[in-house]
């Protein structure tokens, strides 16, 4: 299976139609069976294609979105559904905001090659800014099937909370898809402390798709990466493919037989010691 992490760098965002054409071209280039777009993709397209009357600050973007949300979400999701069906791939279109019972959730979903939604996931851990903006946390992490693989979705700073990856791994995750957005800066270490660390302690594959774009006074940039356990990557780095921040995508093929052999040889999850974890429940 070939996986791709897209950053939206270089994608034409001037209108949904231009976006579709531009994204299609990049997706074809990746030759991926499964592609993941970064966090805030819906917000970025809405902002860049003139859905806002003025140019608000980033936090205002998030605040002003809800009133027009339902209609925009429908448009945003349907254009990605059509793309997934047209290209015959699994597609995670990045993230969008959803209002449910007056709670705002930061969500991602996955379309199958027929263009149907096969999974929806809410962000489960919020950073300080997201909490101040009034977002609510999702309360479950569920797996879905992509071919023979069991797959989970993580959003934003879920990546930095190892409980998320462990829960997915204990449910049997083979692959974790992450939609992220980090402020531009030295992010190689925070990325390593996030998804890379989750992969190494759970022995699954991961696709890390961080946003590379500028929006409402904020600049986002980080490296798109396809991760695997160190032992089964060429230089033992844990990076099957890692590109520079600003590159449009990273793509790589996974060898599931090699991962299964590693798990048998070095069963990390089998060496957990849950008898010692009693106090975690109350921590």
């Amino acid at each position: 299976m070939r996986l791709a992490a897209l950053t939206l760098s270089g994608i034409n965002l001037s209108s949904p139609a231009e976006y579709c054409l531009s994204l299609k071209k990049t997706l074809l280039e990746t030759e991926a069976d499964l592609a993941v777009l970064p966090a805030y993709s819906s917000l970025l397209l809405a902002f860049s294609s003139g859905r806002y009357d003025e140019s608000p600050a980033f936090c205002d973007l998030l605040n002003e979105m809800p009133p027009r949300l339902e209609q925009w979400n429908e448009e945003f999701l349907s254009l990605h559904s059509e793309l997934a069906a047209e290209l015959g791939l699994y597609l995670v279109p990045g993230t969008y905001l959803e209002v449910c019972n007056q709670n705002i959730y930061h969500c991602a979903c996955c379309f199958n090659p027929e263009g149907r939604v096969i999974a929806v996931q809410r962000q489960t851990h919020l950073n300080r800014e997201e909490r101040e903006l009034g977002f609510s946390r999702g309360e479950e992490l569920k797996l879905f099937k992509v071919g023979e693989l069991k797959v989970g979705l993580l959003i934003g700073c879920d990546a930095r909370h190892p409980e998320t990856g462990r829960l997915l791994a204990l449910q049997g995750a083979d692959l974790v898809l992450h939609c992220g957005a980090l402020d531009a800066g030295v992010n190689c270490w925070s990325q390593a402390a996030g998804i890379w660390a989750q992969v190494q302690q759970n022995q699954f594959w991961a696709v890390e798709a961080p946003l590379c774009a500028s929006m409402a006074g904020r600049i986002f940039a980080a490296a798109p990466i396809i991760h695997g356990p160190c032992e089964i990557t060429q230089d033992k780095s844990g990076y099957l493919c890692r590109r520079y921040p600003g590159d449009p995508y990273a793509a790589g093929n996974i060898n599931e037989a090699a991962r299964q052999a590693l798990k048998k040889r070095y069963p990390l999850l089998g060496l957990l010691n849950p008898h010692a974890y009693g106090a975690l429940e109350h921590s």
Partner: protein
Amino acid sequence: MLLDRLKEKLFQRYLVWLFRPARLRRFLKGELPCNIAPMVADKRKIRVAALQVKLELYKNPLHYAARAHERVKEAHRLGAQIVVFPEYNSLPLFGLLPGVDQMDNGLNTPNSSAEKPAISPADIFNFMTPAVMPFIDTLFSRLASAYGIYIMAGSYPLADGKDLVNRSFLYGPGGKLLGSQDKVHLLPMEVEWKMKKGNCFRHFNTGFGTLAMPVCMDATYFETFRLLEADGVDIALLPIANLEEYNYWLALRGIWPRVQESALYGVKSALVGNAAGFTFTGKAGIFAPLELTSDHSGVLAETENPCGDAIAVADLNLEALQDLRSEHPWRDKNPAILKTLNEAYRLL
């Protein structure tokens, strides 16, 4: 058979005599300083030293003691208030066993039972415990007391009754043994040796912050550091002995990500080198949350080379750590996810 047992008993008695604490005390009396005042704790600047110890086999336990003293003396000269020794810190003393220096496949457990040796690693550790451990206790108690510092003496494979455990020890500036910690997550090799795993993590409140000393593989699991953080631990002292060829990324997988996930400081000491068919690699280092390192690397100090003797020294600021914890930019808790995770643990 009877004769073999008799020889074994006699040899063990010889080792007990050779390692006797009284002999060590006499030796140290002429070596250790006697007028060093304990250091004053400043929570904004606690100097810690992580030792990288080259594995050498000793035929005389006093040579081992002298080398340990040199290391502590050097760390003290550099201003260290907490000194950390590595995992399997008694292996150099196994040089006293006949034939160990000629071994070429270490104590590695063979894969097939047909290759199983007559003596298992567990047998050797059990055999050495009565002689070695009183010696170790005396040595590190005296060193801590003489220099007025905290010493995490590393970890030791030892017999505790009928159980084999991998246990680390912490000594206070008065030379008192403050406590011990059994390794909670075992390597597959240790599982094969039928080692008993610990079932909790302990912490020690000191004038230099709250300390804990998980052992090596414990740092592979985020759960360890979450538990330490919940106990208010500021500094995790981690002894390691990695049986693998050095690779930057493989080495990064232990304490570094754990320190990032659960905001605390980490001090890693490493046993390195070749002996008795073992090859250990690793760099001693001192780690902090990215937010508390000027280059955002999460590394305060690290030795340059994964082989040979070395020392890493750095200052830790516990007040800055508390500030980060209370105003953390991205940390969050999700009780629903934690509940589901705990249910998943129960199914294991």
